[in-house]
């Protein structure tokens, strides 16, 4: 962030305490770390993603839980420990709307919706998976029910993400401060539509529309990842451009003039 002299650690600590954009950078890094951890925990540790098949019979499901017993319990333990990280992340997204020329209503609505979405979209899933793995000797029909409960609450939490994306999209499109490029607003529509496309997961136990299907999961995942990568990069740009004013966000000066990127002296 800064090119002041000194050891990297000292520089980091100094920036952490004094950098004029410390709160923004803090939230941005929390967001990056959250998504990294999220990927590692869901895909590698607990191995609940890519999702198991809803077409399996009960013994297969029990076997699936047994294969992942420790990974599920430990992985979701870490999920329970760290998922508070999504609060600063949502706060940063809400801040981006506060910086726009739109009503405060947008930022607060988005903040509440996305804070709410973590409960059915992540916690309920994690709790159901944990309880499913908790007692391997439990009646296998009940384990199967927990399996359905977990995957459906994860994939089938739709409205908050859909309306949340739409709120952000409208804010971006009518914003005059140029906080985000308009194309990201239109991409938000693609993201909102994935939540429509996933709805058949509640209906089908097999095929491309099931919760592990080519359309309801794989294509949606591609859109979600594209969208997420875009907004992480764009939020970074927003923070670099932030001038703490209320008018249009200034553009970044060309690279050559930025040999000392927002070092503190120049900011004050």
């Amino acid at each position, binding site marked *: 962030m800064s090119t002041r002299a000194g050891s990297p650690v000292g520089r980091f600590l100094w920036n952490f305490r004094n950098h004029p954009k410390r*709160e923004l950078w803090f939230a941005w890094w929390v967001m990056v770390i959250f998504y990294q951890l999220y990927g590692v925990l869901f895909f590698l540790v607990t191995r609940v993603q890519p999702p198991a098949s809803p077409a399996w019979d009960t013994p297969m499901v029990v076997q699936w839980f047994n294969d992942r017993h420790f990974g599920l319990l430990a992985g979701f333990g870490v999920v329970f420990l760290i998922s508070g990280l999504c609060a600063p992340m*949502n706060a940063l997204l809400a801040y981006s709307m506060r910086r726009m020329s739109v009503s405060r209503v947008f930022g607060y609505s988005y903040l509440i919706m996305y804070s709410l979405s973590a409960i059915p979209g992540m*916690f309920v899933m994690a709790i159901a998976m*944990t309880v499913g793995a908790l007692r391997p000797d439990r009646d296998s029909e009940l384990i199967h029910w927990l399996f359905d409960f977990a995957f459906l609450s994860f994939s089938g939490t739709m409205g908050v993400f859909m309306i949340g994306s739409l709120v952000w999209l409208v804010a971006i499109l009518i914003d005059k401060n140029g906080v985000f490029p308009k194309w990201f607003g239109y991409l938000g529509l693609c993201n909102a539509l994935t939540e429509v496309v996933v709805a058949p997961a509640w209906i089908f136990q097999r095929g491309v529309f099931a919760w592990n299907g080519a359309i309801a999961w794989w294509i949606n995942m591609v859109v979600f990842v594209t969208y997420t990568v875009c907004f992480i990069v764009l939020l970074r740009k927003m923070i670099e451009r932030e001038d703490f004013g209320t008018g249009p966000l200034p553009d970044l000066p060309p690279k050559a003039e930025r040999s000392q990127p927002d070092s503190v002296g120049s900011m004050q």
Partner: protein
Amino acid sequence: MRRTDGELILFWTLPAIAIIWVSAFFLFPGFLHPMSPTMSTDEVAAFYRDETARIRYSMILFNWFGVGLIPMVILLAMQVRRMAHRTPIVSYSLIACAGGPPTLFLIANMFWLLGSFRPERSPELTQLLNDLAWITFTVLVPYLIAQCLLLALAIYWDRQEQPVFKMWVAHFNILVAVALAPAAFTALTFSGPLAWDGLLSFWVKNIAIAAWIVVMAVVLGQAILRRRVEEPVAA
């Protein structure tokens, strides 16, 4: 005469909430000697059969007043707004956290109430509801941890002549966050301190929450009163 803005009313609901929570805590038969995860299916079913009334009444109390902590978190978020920050990010984050713990607690609460609704059902089902309730109740820590860490960070960053909260409040919040952390891993074991009836996951966690409420209520009250003295005529 200053306008009644109601901040103090909200603040003084806290002791009332605390008393109700403590009574409900003692009324629930499964807390004082926390139910062990090693209880057999039949023991769990018998517990819900024998203690139906106390489970129901205590959990109805919790259901009514479980969300009582939200005004306190919002009051804290408002204090954070007064700190020497350039953006409202930390107070937004606290607002984002505020609804989480009560919602998760309400889910646990519903599972307990469901368990006692038809205690004569198959013991397997009652055990499932009991597991869901205890796991949800024990792992509801993430937002509380985030709240503590965010408050600590906000206080560290609040460098002005008269900071809103003193530095020790930040250290105390870090300590509470550390005390809450082990509970997240409760599902890993049925016995020992990590189990949901164990020293770390039950006693340390719940005492830490209680201590946080008491201490933060006191410093919050001081901050609100100090501000009223400083700004006698609020705009």
